[in-house]
């Protein structure tokens, strides 16, 4: 055999290209974090801050008596309540339709439910659904602004935005490092101080707050640990954070984190060794094992905790300065210990608080972006 002989030529062939996606149809919709370009993300963050600081009596004129439906096929505490509070803070009327107390139980389809809500005057629908992609179907059929409040194992874009706001709140723009202490002031039990102090802190630093850019989080490594496979929070975060310059490490056992996850987008790596991941991280995001989605998958919990539970000791040994986040609900003593959840590095309740501000901005965008479109027509 001649060693210099070229390898057999593989056919270079032209094949049909996938069609361009028409989504989102409605400019007010937020289906995926990929629907937002960097300027839109910056605008949403700025609006969140402005709305949070706005006088209550003028804020509730913004969407006065506009009708927003919450369509929930899955249970929810944080997301549902914060969307509802956000919409009401802007003056909108909200109505909740949940799968267990509606005609969905009688077999009404998502399409028909959406058309019915539209006929009832809903101007936007906030949907949580157990099937991945359901918000796309709802948007296609109703053409209303649709806000994805979590679809199956797919995306949870407002969670990623509020996580981003939490991380940025701890970013020291000068050194480009994450500073845990900034949060500590906001995590006391007095709810009044919780809402006031961080916004004041932000308002004070608003001038030097850098604009959202593709490098604002450069140098920041975020580890997402746990049940990545079934997590929509993980997917939205791994698609969003690298676009702002962050490095995302996914960590977990093969059963809950397939190798192919690293191909979901740029800036994502898979690391099986939790402690090694911790040592590289400024932010540690813990996830719950989603028992309701395991579909027969057997997880040895003792083994899991042994390898992946975030304990006080692990945190102290490997990531003593990292910010600890969790989208909730947390299961104390499983993915993290109670001590870590309540500890000084925890930003879990701060995340919840950011949820209301972010969702005000997203709800405002849903209805005002539509008004602009109608104005053009």
């Amino acid at each position: 055999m001649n060693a210099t002989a070229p390898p057999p030529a593989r056919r270079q062939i032209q094949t049909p290209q996938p069609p361009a996606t028409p989504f989102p149809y409605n400019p007010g919709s937020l289906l995926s974090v990929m629907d937002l370009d960097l300027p839109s993300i910056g605008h949403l963050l700025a609006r969140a801050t402005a709305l949070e600081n706005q006088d209550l009596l003028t804020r509730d004129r913004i969407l006065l008596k506009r009708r927003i439906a919450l369509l929930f096929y899955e249970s929810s505490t944080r997301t549902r309540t914060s969307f509802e509070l956000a919409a009401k803070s802007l003056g909108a009327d909200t109505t909740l339709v949940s799968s267990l107390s509606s005609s969905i139980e009688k077999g009404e389809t998502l399409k028909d439910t959406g058309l019915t809500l539209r006929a009832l005057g809903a101007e936007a629908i906030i949907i949580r659904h157990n099937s991945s992609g359901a918000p796309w179907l709802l948007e296609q059929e109703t053409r209303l602004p649709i806000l994805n409040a979590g679809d199956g194992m797919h995306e949870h874009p407002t969670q990623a935005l509020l996580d981003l706001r939490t991380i940025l709140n701890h970013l020291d723009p000068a050194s480009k490092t994450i500073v845990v202490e900034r949060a500590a002031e906001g995590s006391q039990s007095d709810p009044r101080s919780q809402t006031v102090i961080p916004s004041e802190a932000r308002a004070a630093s608003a001038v030097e707050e850098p604009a959202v850019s593709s490098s604002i989080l450069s140098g920041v490594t975020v580890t997402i640990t746990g049940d990545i496979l079934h997590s929509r929070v993980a997917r939205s975060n791994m698609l969003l954070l690298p676009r702002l310059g962050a490095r995302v490490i996914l960590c977990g056992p093969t059963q809950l984190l397939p190798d192919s996850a690293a191909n979901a987008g740029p800036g994502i790596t898979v690391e099986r060794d939790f402690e090694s991941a911790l040592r590289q991280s400024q932010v540690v995001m813990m996830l719950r094992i989603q028992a309701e989605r395991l579909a027969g998958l057997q997880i040895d919990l003792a083994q899991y905790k042994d390898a992946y539970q975030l304990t006080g000791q692990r945190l102290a040994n490997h990531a003593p300065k990292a910010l600890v986040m969790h989208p909730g609900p947390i299961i104390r003593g499983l993915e993290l210990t109670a001590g870590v959840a309540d500890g000084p590095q925890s930003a879990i309740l701060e995340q919840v608080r950011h949820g209301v501000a972010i969702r005000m901005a997203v709800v405002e965008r849903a209805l005002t972006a539509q008004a602009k479109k109608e104005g053009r027509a």
Partner: protein
Amino acid sequence: MTTLLIRNGHLIDPAAGVDAPKDILLKDGRVAEIASPGKIKVNGNAGPDVQILDATGLTVAPGLIDIHVHLREPGQAHKETIATGTAAAAAGGFTAVAAMPNTNPVNDSPEITRWMLAPERGAAVRVYPIGAATRGSKGEQINDFAALKAAGAVAVTDDGHPILKDNIMRETLAAAARVGLSVIQHAEDTRMTQGASMNAGPMAFKLGLRGMPAEAESGLVERDIRLVTELKDARVHLHVAHTSTAAAVAAVRKARRNGLRVTCEVAPHHFLLTEEHVGQYNTNAKMNPPLRSAADRDAMIEAILDGVVDAIATDHAPHATHEKEVEFENAPNGITGLETALGLCLRWLHKEWKLPLGRVLGLLSAQPAALLGLKGRGTLAVGSFADVVVFDPKAEWTYHARETRSKAHNTPFDGWTMQGKVRWTISEGRIAYAATTPQ
């Protein structure tokens, strides 16, 4: 019955080795004569009552044969009927279709097989029922294959409920061989695909959907080939339906090299589309087997070009629009295919990837006919059935699902450019389809 004379066309009949300008006389449902242009005289050898079809500039070929369609009758007439499905077949140039048994009830008896073949069904082209391999397609109790064959079945399969138990599959292969029937297997180890709705891989991960691993297909193909090997009976014929993965094709290739009677088909969507075409949960890109990776798709193209693939089959699977307008995970599997197969094969296999026209037509007629032993089909040799497709091989056109003759509109090829427009489809000497706007 009218006598038809197709004049001035270019005849391509791969089975007979013909690729030349010819006139064809069709009489009493059979091919009566083939001669050089102008040699068949009206009032002479054609007789006085002859209808002349002018095929100048057109290709004349054996009617196409699709060995994998779902006509949905009995039991699911809201999706498709034998009449509407075969009308779509005729519009697509097909003159014979083999109908899968996953009807309601399952076609596991001579009674249902005969019901499907009854003239009351209004079939526009020839229907060949495929019988269920096991009672109710439950994979437990093998049917009476001799009785099914006598009633008209041309093969047996449990289609979407593949036979997982080794002993049942072994017995199915042996029993079918004894009566001269092929066993068609939809290769999917359903123990590995529970709750899955697309191909396993990065795209499924991204979309948050559970995936069907390629091994679920190739593993069962390898198991079936092992069973064929062990049976050591030259009459055993295993046909692998809608092959979609590189590993499955490799297994078939190896089995053939070892002299086994193992054949396979590929559907147009599996040599054209990939999992990327699922896009944002397009339920018209959901089928089983699912659209696979680009590497698998390329392997299908290679296998077609180098001859491992025996047939192009559409897996025409009509569904009502409302059934597909649901959450991706809840949508039924399948897309229509009868009206788009020829146009896609000519546009891509022939024009783009340079597979000679005769080979393309062979994959769509002579080879599937030989595979299932459909006598007198897939060729236009004198004495064969007068099953003919006449088409303009150069015509480019756009497929619109709304204009379909099927009851269903579930196709990912709506708005696609096709090449090769069917002018006439003739089934056993009758014009089953004539283009409404001849140029």
